[in-house]
């Protein structure tokens, strides 16, 4: 096999012109054929010579002619092969054709060549001419063969054979047609190939351009972007990410998130990030803030899906929140300090006003009593606003603590009713309360905060109800949860506002802040307190009919470590 492929390799000609290469290869194939025929003829001649002890030849002259003819053919084949290999174009083909024509002319006795069995041999160079030289070369070869034939006939004293010439030219026409058709087909094929090549090149360039565009966008994005494959290994990372994680891209790619976080991220944050990356389908707004080395980073993730919906990985976007986190912390500290500083003089004012009210400095006139009464109410209001701010700051700073003790539901509700009764009566509202029979005698929790929560809801209910009743009740929700609810017959909460009334500084209508008072901090604090207690808030409301706020709390407290006062 190796020898065969060597030979086939030998047939190939180094040429850039595909037509030239094809023709010269064909010449080589023919030369190979000729060489084989020549060798076989030589072997046959030698065998016949020895077997017949020289009697096969009529004379020594004949014998010499045969040997010289065969040898000359083989040498010619060699020379033409060499020419064909190193000289491009028509020279080798022409020599081959001439050799073949000569071989045809001397292949047989002149009588046979001119009028008999030798005639057909001329067809070979004629047909070959069209494929190894040019399609029209078959006509030249036909002419050449006719001339050679005529010369032989005239040499014999015969009239040249016009039929032979006619046949030669007919063969030439057929060869010419066949070769022409083949060359055209090849040409078309080549044109097609060139076009195809061009198209492939264009597409490749477009793809490269779009890739480099995407890469340029990635590289110039300020957020850190990293893509993990389905095995959790980083496949792509942009320079911004390298900056945020303070390690070169080369040390990011091919590593998983655990490797990237080790040493620089605390154990708790590591778990948060790993969970975020693992459970991306569950979270609706999958984003967390973590301390990463010296920075605070927000991490958000999303699955990477192909058009076919196949998930090929996860993209995580890292944003530097260091400054924001620092500002947040400073803000919390500021609010905390400011609240404390505000409370000190307020406490003093309240003390003096109470002393006035209690008659410590002598009895007051009726009008003075009224004014002092308003002073007490307003100072208390101011204090509760400051306290709200302080609570808010504590919640944001994560320093709000719960004071857990046992208490009775009846006491809780009575305490609230006692505080709110007057406010309800002043607006002509009925304040009713109820404790379900199945509620346990004692409940566990931060009585103070629960009281604060209920007061907040009742206060709102009274504030936003013009006529009717406010009902406070404590019931069992299920075997594990109890619930306290405040129902009113007030203005209700519009559907679109239900999402944001628990945000700080939000009331349904900005004008409501002026009309109904309050800084809008209450509900957001209530929500966070309830969540700290492991519970949640439910809201049922119909605009114009009323609202019911329900706080559902677990019977068995499951408050995070550190959120309880010692």
């Amino acid at each position, binding site marked *: 096999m190796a020898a065969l492929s060597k030979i086939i390799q030998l047939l190939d000609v180094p040429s850039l012109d595909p037509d030239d290469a094809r023709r010269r290869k064909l010449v080589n194939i023919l030369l190979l054929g000729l060489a084989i025929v020549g060798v076989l003829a030589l072997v046959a001649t030698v065998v016949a010579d020895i077997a017949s002890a020289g009697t096969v030849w009529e004379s020594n002259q004949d014998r010499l002619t045969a040997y010289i003819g065969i040898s000359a053919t083989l040498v010619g084949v060699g020379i033409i092969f060499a020419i064909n290999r190193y000289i491009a174009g028509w020279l080798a083909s022409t020599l081959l054709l001439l050799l073949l024509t000569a071989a045809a002319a001397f292949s047989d006795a002149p009588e046979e060549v001119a009028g008999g069995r030798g005639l057909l041999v001329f067809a070979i160079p004629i047909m070959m001419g069209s494929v190894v030289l040019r399609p029209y070369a078959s006509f030249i070869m036909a002419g050449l063969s006719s001339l050679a034939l005529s010369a032989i006939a005239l040499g014999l004293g015969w009239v040249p054979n016009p039929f032979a010439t006619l046949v030669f030219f007919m063969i030439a026409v057929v060869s010419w047609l066949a070769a022409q058709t083949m060359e055209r087909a090849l040409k078309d094929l080549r044109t097609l190939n060139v076009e195809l090549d061009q198209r492939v090149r264009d597409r490749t360039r477009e793809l490269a351009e779009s890739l480099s565009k995407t890469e340029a966008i990635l590289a110039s994005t300020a957020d850190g972007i990293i893509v993990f494959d389905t095995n959790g290994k980083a496949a792509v990372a942009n320079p911004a990410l390298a900056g945020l994680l303070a390690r070169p891209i080369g040390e990011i790619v091919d590593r998983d998130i655990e490797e990237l976080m080790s040493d620089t991220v605390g154990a708790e944050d590591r778990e948060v990030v790993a969970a975020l990356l693992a459970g991306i389908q569950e979270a609706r707004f999958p984003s967390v803030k973590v301390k990463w080395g010296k920075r605070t980073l927000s991490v958000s993730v999303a699955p990477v899906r192909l058009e076919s919906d196949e998930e090929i990985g996860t993209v995580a976007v890292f944003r530097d929140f260091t400054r924001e986190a620092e500002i947040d912390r400073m803000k919390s500290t500021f609010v905390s300090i400011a609240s404390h500083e505000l409370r000190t003089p*307020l406490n*003093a004012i309240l003390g003096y006003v109470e002393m006035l009210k209690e008659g410590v400095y002598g009895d007051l006139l009726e009008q003075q009593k009224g004014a002092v009464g308003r002073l007490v109410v307003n100072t208390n209001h101011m204090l509760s606003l400051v306290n709200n701010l302080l609570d808010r700051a504590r919640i944001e700073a994560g320093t709000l603590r719960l*004071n857990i003790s046992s208490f009775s539901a009846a006491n809780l509700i009575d305490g609230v009713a006692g505080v709110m009764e007057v406010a309800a009566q002043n607006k002509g509202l009925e304040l009713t309360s109820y404790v379900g029979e199945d509620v346990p005698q004692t409940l566990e929790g931060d009585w103070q905060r629960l009281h604060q929560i209920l007061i907040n809801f009742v206060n709102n209910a009274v504030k936003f109800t013009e006529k009717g009743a406010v009902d406070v009740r404590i019931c069992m929700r299920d075997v594990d949860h109890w619930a306290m609810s405040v129902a009113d017959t007030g203005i209700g909460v519009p559907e679109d506002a239900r999402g944001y009334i628990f945000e700080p500084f939000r009331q349904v209508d900005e004008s409501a802040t002026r009309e109904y008072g309050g800084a809008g901090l209450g509900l957001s604090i209530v929500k966070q307190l309830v969540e700290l207690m492991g519970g949640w808030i439910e809201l049922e409301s119909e605009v114009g009919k009323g609202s019911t706020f329900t706080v559902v709390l677990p019977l068995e407290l499951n408050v995070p470590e550190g959120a309880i*006062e*010692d």
Partner: protein
Amino acid sequence: MSKPLALVVEDEYDISIIFARALREAGYEAEIIRSGDTALTWLAAEVPDLVILDLNLPRVPGPKILEHIRGDARFEKTRIIVATAYPRLAAQMRSQADWILIKPVNFGQLRDLAARFSPDLPQGEQPGRSTDDSDE
């Protein structure tokens, strides 16, 4: 019969005035001291019936004074009301204090509480040890 003696240890000027006034209204003779070290010096000579103690004091902190009083047999009959703005800190004082008030302290509330702690009252009517975390 002389009036019972009360000590107000409070570094905020106005609050100390208000506290002292509430105690006087409750029938005490009230002494105001505004720093921890002065309070200890005063206590070396006097034995008050009631102490209103702030926890956040200059030089010697409130818990130290509380400890000092509880560790001295001379003050066996002295009642202590801790008044502070920090519920967490106050909770740690629960076992040593007779009562805990979370600031802001209501004037009337302190006056009535002090009156009930007065040694002039029969023992049975005095309140036991408890806490009031009122933060309203």
